């Protein structure tokens, strides 16, 4: 029976070993490991989406359309958790607009309902419809879009005319191509694009099915290459990892800046509270697919992941290591307990929105004027996120990162206004 003594020894060792203090370097390592795994998962789930999109284009049907939609929804689960890496890491923030820009004037890409309106004061290209127009004028120049390529999307159409709402690439462009506009207003139901929008020959609905398929294919290819770039940046020897490790204090500060900025200005502010205050279903983050409840929820989970130093991968395995939580506990155990409980409360509040949405109370309905239950649910999430931001600030002060928290962050140094 050699096994038992060994096991006992291991237990004895574990018990005898004093809890070693987590070093800042180890905490940064764990954070980078989680980022690497999280972006790798975003990539593999996007590759699954790509396979499903190829199947839809090769063999258009209600089944292949639904399979592509399901793959898109699955791909959002790891990606939304990565958003906590965005603010605080300049390399992520500079890149993020390519894959997750929002909100978009979708009329740039494809046909829209008459109620959408035409070009607006803010955006002359709001109803450009590239799929229907092989050539068009952009900033006085004729553009040849007879072949729809990733380069056209990335270099010509994305943020065309300097307007952020001209989103030509990324998850939300793909979402629009899979679901179409959600014309249900405040009633339940997502976009209802027919699969025949990708059918060939006479079965094609709404015209230009081949160009629509080309667009969807190009946008998906681009998403893969962009995610691949970011997964590599966090892998061993990658640029994002190197930048994080260059300065320990700045690295810890980047973690907390990411947590605080995503909690407060971005998710609680622009994405959630603004929608409630405007009562506007178009303020939904995933308005075509009606997946907004998951967007917010997985943002909350991502914030909790990096504090606890734990991430559940898309294959179910756990990535974990010495965490910020360990580090804070050594300095101020009560503050660590406070931070953990605030994170837990926020995730719980966000999960309530998710539960209600999945049971049939759509996020659109929650946003409707006079819908008190919906407002209470969303504001519960907002308040949880704002509340945890205050504790994040206390953590920054407790770790003496006050100076670096302000500098070295793109989102704090050069932010756009919250309503843009």
């Amino acid at each position, binding site marked *: 029976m050699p096994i038992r003594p060994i096991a006992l020894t291991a237990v004895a060792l574990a018990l005898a070993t004093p809890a070693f203090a987590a070093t800042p370097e180890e905490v940064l390592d764990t954070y980078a490991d989680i980022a690497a795994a999280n972006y790798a998962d975003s990539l593999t789930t996007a590759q699954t989406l790509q396979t499903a999109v190829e199947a839809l284009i090769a063999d258009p049907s209600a089944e292949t359309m639904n399979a592509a939609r399901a793959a898109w929804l699955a791909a959002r689960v790891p990606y939304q958790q990565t958003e906590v890496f965005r*603010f605080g890491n300049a390399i992520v923030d500079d890149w993020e607009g390519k894959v997750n820009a929002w*909100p978009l004037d979708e009329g740039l890409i494809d046909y829209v309902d008459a109620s959408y309106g035409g070009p*607006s*004061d*803010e955006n002359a290209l709001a109803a450009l419809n590239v799929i229907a127009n092989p050539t068009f004028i952009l900033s006085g120049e004729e553009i040849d879009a007879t072949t729809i390529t990733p380069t056209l999307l990335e270099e010509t159409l994305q943020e065309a*005319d*300097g307007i952020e*709402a001209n989103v030509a690439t990324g998850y939300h462009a793909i979402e629009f191509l899979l679901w179409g506009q959600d014309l249900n207003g405040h009633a339940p139901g997502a976009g209802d694009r027919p699969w025949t929008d990708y059918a060939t020959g006479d079965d094609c609905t709404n015209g230009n099915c081949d160009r629509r398929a080309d667009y969807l294919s190009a946008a998906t290819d681009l998403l893969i290459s962009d995610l691949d770039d970011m997964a590599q940046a966090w892998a061993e020897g990658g640029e994002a990892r190197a930048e994080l490790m260059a300065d320990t204090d700045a690295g810890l500060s980047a973690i907390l800046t990411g947590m*605080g*900025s*995503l*909690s*407060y*200005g*971005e*998710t609680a*502010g*622009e994405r959630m*509270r603004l929608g409630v*205050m*405007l*009562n*506007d279903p*178009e303020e939904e983050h995933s308005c075509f697919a009606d997946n907004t409840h998951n967007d917010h929820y997985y943002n909350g989970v991502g914030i909790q992941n990096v504090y606890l130093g734990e991430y559940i991968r898309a294959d179910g395995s756990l990535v974990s290591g010495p965490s910020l939580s360990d580090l804070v506990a050594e300095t101020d155990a009560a503050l660590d307990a406070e931070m953990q409980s605030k994170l837990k409360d926020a995730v719980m509040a966000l999960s309530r929105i998710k539960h209600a949405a999945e049971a049939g109370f759509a996020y659109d309905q929650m946003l409707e*004027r*006079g819908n008190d239950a919906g407002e209470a649910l969303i504001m519960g999430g907002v308040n949880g996120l704002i509340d945890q*931001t205050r504790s*994040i*600030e*206390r953590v*920054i*002060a407790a770790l003496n990162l*006050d*100076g670096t*928290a*302000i*500098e070295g962050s793109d*989102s*704090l140094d050069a*932010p*756009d*206004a*919250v*309503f*843009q």
Partner: protein
Amino acid sequence: MTRHILAAALALTPLAALSAPSTGQIVQEHILPRFEALTETADILAQAAQDDCQPASAPLRAAYHDAFDAWISASHLRFGPTEVDDRAFALAFWPDSRGATPRVLSGLIAAEDPVAMDPEDYAEVSIAGRGFYALEALLFDDRFTGDDHAEYRCTLVQTITADIAQLSADIEQDWRDDYAEVITTPGPDAPYRSDEEALQELLRALSQGLQLTHDSRLGRPLGSFDQPRPMRAEARRSERSARHVRLSLAALRDLALYLAAEDDALAQRLGEQFDTALARLDALADPTFAGVADPQTRLKIEVLQQDVNAIRDTVQQELGPTLGVAAGFNALDGD
């Protein structure tokens, strides 16, 4: 001679160098008077709309300008009572990059939605249809000042101004009844755990106010050199764009000097930086920043924007450390 100067310096020094910023003083001298002025001018505005709701009414427009001035002078104080029930958002929804204000107003007017018959009901309406920017559209935007639905639009003006007056009164009352004490009495179980956290709130307000002026009030119309965006200037239809920059800088200057009380040299430098920016703004003489499209005027507006940025740097790098706090996260973080 030398002795006199020295004596004078010694006499002055204790006052300047030893007085740490006092939250109580800032509440009494900087915050409460601003919200009091807002309540007063908003009441006058609501009354003016009752007396004459025509968009071209001179007394109504004058009251609009006075109340909007009062709001801009208080608008950096975005914490506590302004954030209850989305009051500040309802008073001032801007920037409106997706055109929500004209869309909401058009919808209400086309349907002659009865929600506008009562200010209390109107509190349910989208923030894009409430407050000063919606009122500006109804008084100054050609799309809303014609003959169609004139009677309904009149009601809308009266309701929106009454709503503004109520929101303003609620903010002031909460400050007087509750928040003035909350922010001046920190404690382990209180919203502010220490004086530092209260000061951090005020530093955040200063910092966020500067950021809004830099990024939105100046940055939005500036756009880029190739694509200036004069139509994005704040409240340009009532020619208030530059006025808002002036009012906000004056209010932020006042707050900055209170916060810098501990460090004479820093206070002086901040005062000079604000004065430089204010002087450049006056010299510009471009009320709506229409000059962003003219290379020479544009350069002057860019220099003004850099002035504001320089103040932000001083606040972040010197004032924050002097107070021993960082500005923390604010609502403009994110994108």
